C-alpha cells in the first residue's frame, strides 16, 4: 500500500488539497484589510464551539461524543466573525482589542466546556494542532461543502470583494452593498477556519490563510495573481507537508506551517537580492 492507495491518506490528501486551495482566498482579503490575525481570534472561538459541540453530544448521549464538534465550531466561528465585523463597523472597539477579547474568551470557554462534558484538555489537542490523519468520510464531505462555498463566493464575487477591501469609501460612493460584502468576508473567514481546523489546528490556522498570500506577494504585483498563486502555494504546502509525514513520524499541521515559513524566507531573500541587483544596474547605467 502506498500513499495514493492508503484510504486514510486518500481522505487526508483530498482534505489537504481543498483546504490548501480555499484558505488563501480568504487570506488575501484579510491581508488586504490588514486583519491577518483575525483567523487567530476566530480560531480560538471555534475551539469553544468544538467543546460546546462535545458538551451537546454528551448531553444528547450520542455514541461518538465529538460528532457535533465541527458543527459547533462552524456556528461559534460565524457568530464570532460577525461580532468582530459589527464591532469594527460601529467603532465600538478597535479591531485588535475585539480580537484579543475573542482570543482569550474562546480558549477559556473551550477549556470550561470540555471539562463540563467530562472530557480532558487532551481531547482538544487534535483541534489545537490538527489531526488530519484521523479524518473520516463525513469530515471529507463537510470539507468539500465548506471549501466549495469558499471557492464559489470568494472567487465568484472577487471583483466586488476586492473593491470593498481595497477602497471602502469608493465602494460606498458606488452604491456597493459594503456591509453585506464585509459580512461575507467575515463569514468566509469563519468557514475557512472551521474547514482548516482538522488540517493544521486552530493555533496554526491563520498561518495556512496568510503564509501562501505572503509568499505570493514576494513574486507578483496584482491582487488576482496574488490570490491565484496563493491558492497554488497553499495546495502545494499542504500536500507536501502531508506527504513527508507519511514517510516520517512528524506532526502534519506543524510541518505544513514550518515549510510555509521557510518558503517565505527563501522567497523574501530572493526578492530582496533581485531588487538590489536591479537597483545596482540602474545606478551603473546612470553613471555610465
Amino acid at each position: 500500500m502506498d500513499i495514493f492507495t492508503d484510504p486514510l491518506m486518500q481522505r487526508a490528501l483530498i482534505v489537504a488539497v481543498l483546504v490548501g486551495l480555499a484558505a488563501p482566498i480568504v487570506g488575501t482579503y484579510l491581508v488586504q484589510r490588514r486583519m491577518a490575525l483575525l483567523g487567530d481570534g476566530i480560531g480560538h472561538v471555534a475551539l469553544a464551539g468544538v467543546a460546546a459541540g462535545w458538551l451537546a453530544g454528551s448531553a444528547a448521549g450520542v455514541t461518538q461524543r465529538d460528532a457535533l464538534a465541527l458543527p459547533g465550531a462552524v456556528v461559534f466561528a460565524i457568530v464570532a466573525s460577525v461580532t468582530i465585523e459589527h464591532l469594527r463597523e460601529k467603532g465600538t472597539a478597535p479591531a485588535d482589542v475585539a480580537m484579543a477579547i475573542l482570543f482569550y474568551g474562546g480558549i477559556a470557554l473551550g477549556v470550561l466546556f470540555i471539562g463540563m462534558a467530562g472530557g480532558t484538555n487532551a481531547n482538544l489537542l487534535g483541534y489545537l494542532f490538527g489531526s488530519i490523519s484521523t479524518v473520516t468520510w463525513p469530515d471529507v464531505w463537510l470539507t468539500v461543502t465548506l471549501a466549495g462555498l469558499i471557492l464559489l463566493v470568494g472567487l465568484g464575487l472577487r471583483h466586488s470583494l476586492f473593491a470593498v477591501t481595497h477602497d471602502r469609501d469608493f465602494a460606498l460612493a458606488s452604491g456597493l452593498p459594503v456591509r453585506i460584502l464585509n459580512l461575507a468576508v467575515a463569514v468566509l473567514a469563519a468557514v475557512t477556519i472551521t474547514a482548516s481546523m482538522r488540517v493544521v489546528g486552530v493555533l496554526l490556522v491563520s498561518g495556512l490563510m496568510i503564509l501562501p498570500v505572503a509568499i505570493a506577494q514576494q513574486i507578483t504585483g496584482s491582487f488576482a495573481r496574488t490570490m491565484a498563486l496563493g491558492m497554488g502555494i497553499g495546495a502545494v504546502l499542504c500536500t507536501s507537508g502531508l506527504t513527508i509525514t507519511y514517510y516520517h513520524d512528524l506532526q502534519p499541521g506543524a510541518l505544513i506551517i514550518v515549510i510555509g515559513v521557510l518558503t517565505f524566507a527563501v522567497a523574501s531573500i530572493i526578492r530582496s537580492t533581485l531588487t538590489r541587483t536591479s537597483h545596482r544596474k540602474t545606478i551603473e547605467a546612470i553613471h555610465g
Partner: protein
Amino acid sequence: MAKRVGTACPTVQVRDLHVALGGSPIVHGVSFDVTQGEVLALMGGNGSGKTTTVKAILGIVPTLAGTIEIDGVPADEAPREKVGYVPQRTSAAGGVSASALEVVVSGLLHDRRLIPPKNARTQALEALEAVGLASEARSDVATLSGGQQQRVLIARAMVRRPCLLILDEPLAGVDLPSQNVFANVLTNLKDQGATVLIVLHEIGPLKSLIDRAIVLDQGRVTHDGKPPHAHGEHALPGHVHVHPHEDVSVPPPTGLTTQGPV
C-alpha cells in the same frame, strides 16, 4: 466633443445639511443645488466642511439632518451607475498589491452590478489610455508616483462614463502632467454636458471651467456665485479671496424646513 444625446445628467440638491463626525458638528445647515450640466466648485479652507459635505452626498458619512437628492431621488436610493467619484487619495488598506488595471475595473461596479462586464478589461485599458497610463496597467499602484496614482483614480471614475462627477481636491499634491490630464478630462466632461461638483482649496488653473462656486467656512455657506479670485500664482492653500462686488446670494439660514435624516 458632442453633448450627450438623450441623456439628462443628474442634478444634486442639498437642503439644510447637518453632519457630525465623532460627535463634533462639521457641517451646519448647508444648502445648495448643482444644476444639470453645471461645473460647481465647493471651496473653503482646511476644516471648512467641504470634503465632509461631498462624502455626505455620496453616502460615505451619515448625516444628522437635512435632505440630499440626486436627480430628485434621495441620495441613498439614487442609482450610482453614472455617478463618478474621485477621492483626494485612495482609502485603500493596501495590504495586498493591486494593479492599476484592477483598480480601474473596480470602477465598473456599482449598486446594480457586482460582477464586471465581459469587456471590462478593454474599457479599463481605454480609461487608462485616456489618462496616459496604459503602459502602467499591470503595475502595482503603490509603486506609481502620487500624480500617477491620482490619474488611476480619475480613470476609475471615468471608466463608467459618469454623467455626474464628484471630485475631492483632485489637484492636491499632483504633478503638472497629471494636472493637465485632469484639466483635459474636465473639459471633455463639460463639453459633454456632465454635471460636475468639485472640491477645491483654491480656484487655481481651473477657473475657466468653473461655472459657479460655493465657499464654506466652518461648515456654513459664506459665498454662492461666481468663482472667487484666487491670489494669482501666489495663492496659498485654503486662502480664497472673495470680491465684494461679485454675485453673492447665500440662502438664509432660516426658512428651510429641516427634514429627516437622509
